[in-house]
C-alpha cells in the first residue's frame, strides 16, 4: 500500500519534471531564433527576453520535485552515509518534519496569495512591448511548492518503510549522469570477470 503511494507520487513528479525539462529546448531554440533575427536580419523580436526567463524559471522550479525523487538535491553525506539504514531513516524523518514541511508549506500558502493576486489582474511583463503574461510564473510558486510538498510526503513514507523493513526501498531510476553510468558498467564488468575467474578455479 505504502509502496503504491510512493510509486504514484514518484511517477507524477517524474512526468511533470520530464515535461518541463523540454523548456530547456524551447529556451535554446527561442533564444537562437532571437539571435538570428536580431544579428542577421536586424529585426529583433519583442518576446524573446521574456520567454527566456519564463522558460528558465518554469524549468528549474517544476523539476524540483522530480530532482528530490531522484535524491538529486545537494546534501553533505560524509556522516550520513556511514550510518545504518534505520538511523538514516530516523534522522531523515525528523528533519523532514523540522526542516522541510514548515518552509515548503509557507511557500505554498504565501505563494498562493501572491500567484492568485497576479492571476486575477492578468499581470503581464513590463520588460517588453509584447506584454508577455507573467502571472503564470508567479502561479508556479504555489503549484511547484505543492508538488514539492507531495514529493516530501513520498520521501517521508520511504523513511517509514525503511523503519519497518530495516532497509531503504528501491528508488525509480530513469537517467543517470554519464560518469555514474560508466562507473556502474565498469563495476559490472569487474564483477563478471571475478565470477568467471572463480568458476575457472573451481573447474
Amino acid at each position, binding site marked *: 500500500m505504502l509502496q503504491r503511494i510512493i510509486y504514484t507520487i514518484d511517477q507524477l513528479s517524474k512526468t511533470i519534471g520530464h515535461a518541463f525539462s523540454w523548456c530547456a529546448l524551447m529556451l535554446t531554440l527561442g533564444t537562437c531564433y532571437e539571435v538570428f533575427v536580431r544579428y542577421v536580419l536586424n529585426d529583433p523580436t519583442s518576446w524573446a527576453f521574456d520567454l527566456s526567463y519564463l522558460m*528558465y524559471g518554469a524549468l528549474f522550479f517544476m523539476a524540483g520535485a522530480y530532482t528530490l525523487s531522484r535524491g538529486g*538535491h545537494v546534501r553533505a553525506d560524509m556522516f550520513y552515509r556511514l550510518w545504518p539504514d534505520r538511523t538514516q531513516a530516523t534522522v531523515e524523518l525528523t528533519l523532514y518534519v523540522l526542516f*522541510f514541511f514548515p518552509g515548503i508549506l509557507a511557500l505554498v500558502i504565501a505563494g498562493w496569495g501572491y500567484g492568485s493576486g497576479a492571476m486575477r489582474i492578468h499581470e503581464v511583463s513590463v520588460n517588453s512591448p509584447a506584454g508577455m503574461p507573467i502571472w503564470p510564473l508567479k502561479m508556479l510558486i504555489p503549484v511547484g511548492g505543492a508538488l514539492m510538498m507531495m514529493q516530501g510526503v513520498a520521501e517521508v513514507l520511504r523513511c517509514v518503510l525503511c523503519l519497518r523493513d530495516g532497509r531503504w526501498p528501491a528508488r525509480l531510476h530513469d537517467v543517470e549522469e554519464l560518469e555514474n553510468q560508466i562507473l556502474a558498467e565498469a563495476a559490472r564488468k569487474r564483477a563478471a570477470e571475478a565470477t568467471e575467474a572463480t568458476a575457472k578455479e573451481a573447474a
Partner: protein
Amino acid sequence: MSDPAVALTMLGILVFAIMIGFPVAFTLMALGVGFGYYAYFQPQQYFFDNRVFFLLTQNTFTVLNNDALVSIPLFLLMGYLVERANILDNLFKSLQIALRGVPASLAVATLATCALFATATGIVGAVVTLMGMLAFPQMLKAGYDSRLAAGVVCAGGCLGILIPPSIMLIVYGAIASISVVKLYAAAMVPGFLLAGMYMLYVIAVGILKPQLAPPLPKDEGRVSTGELLTMLAKSFFPLALLILSVLGAILFGLATPTEAAAVGAFGAGVLAVAYRTFTWQGLRESMFLTARTSAMVCWLFVGSATFASVFAYLGGNVMIKDFVLGLDLNPITFLLLSQAIIFVLGWPLEWTEIIIIFVPIFLPMLPHFGIDPMVFGVLVAINLQTAFLSPPMAMAAYYLKGVSPPSVLLTQIFSGCMPFVYIVLVTMVIMYVFPQTTLWLPELLYG
C-alpha cells in the same frame, strides 16, 4: 537574546543540519521562514501578515526571473550534448598524433584533450571517467608511470570548473553581483596559465625523467601532414570553433551570455548530428539531466535568498564582519585564512553550497582589505577545483579508480595528483602577487 546572537544561532543550526546530511535547500528555507517569523514578529498581527511570507515569495520570484541565471541550463545542456556526441576518441587520437614530437607527448595530448573537452562540458566526473578509459590505458601501455598518468587525467578533468564558460563562475557572479562577462574575462588568463603550467610540468618530466614518460617509438602513428590536417579538421577544429565562438561572442560583447550559451547548446546539437551520433535517447537524457542539475542549483538560490535576508536583518553579517575586522588582520593573512576555510569546507560540501552560503560571508569584507571581488572569485574557483583533486575528498581520483584496472591503487592515484595540487598552489600565489593576471583582460576589454 540579542538579535545578532539569534542570527548566530540560526547559522549554527544551519551548519549542524548540513553536517547531519539534510538537503541544504530546504534547511535554508525552513530556517529563513522560522527565524524570519521571529525577526519580523509584531503583536496583534495576523499570522500570515508577517513580513517573512512576503519576503519568501518575493525572493522566490526574484530567482525565478533572474536573467543572470538563465544561462545555467543552457551551458548544462551544451555540456550534456557534447558529452553524448562521442567525439572524444577522435579528438584524442588526432591531438596525440599532432603532438607526437613533444616530450611526454601522450600526457600533453591528454591534458590538451581534457582542457578542451572539459571546457565544453564543465562536468568533472564525465571527463575523468571517459579519459580514464581512453587515455589512461594507452599511457600505461606506453610504459608511463601509473602515478603520473593518473595525475594527468585527474588534473586535466578538473580544468572545466575554472575555464569559462564555467557554471561556477555564473553562480559566483550572481552571488557577488558581478557581471559574468567580466568574470569570464578574469578567469581566462589564470585558467590557461594553469593548463599551461600542467603541460610544462609533464614536458619537464618527459625530458628530465624519461623513464616515467617514455617517448613513443619513432614510427608509431606516423601519418602525412595532409592526413593529420584532415583528422584535426574532423575532430579538433569543430569543437574548438564551437567553444571559441561561444566565448568570443561573450567576451567581445557581441552577445549576452544567455544568447551565446543558447547558440552553444544548439551548436552542440548540430555537432552531434554532423558526427552521426545524434539520438532521441541522447537528447532526452540531456534534457532530463539539464532539468535536474538546474533544479539542484537554483533551488539552493531559492532557499538561500530568504535565509540571507533574514540573517542580514538580524545583524549577523555586520557582527561577523566586525569580528573579523576587529582581528586586525593584514590582507595576506585574511586572504590565506579565507581561502583555507573555503578549501576545508570543500571536503564535506559541494561547491554550490560553498559559493551560495559561505562565500557571501566573506564578500562584504573584501573592500576593507582592498581585494578585488573578481580576483577573489577566480581564486575561489581555482581553490574549489582543487577539492576535486586533493585528498581526502579527491572525487576525481575515485572516478578514475572506478574505471581503471585493479592493479592501479587509489594511493597511487592520490600521490599522482599531488604534484598538480602544488602547481595549483603556485598558480594561486602568482595570481595574488600579480593581480594583473586576473585583471588585465577585463580591463583591456571593458576599460
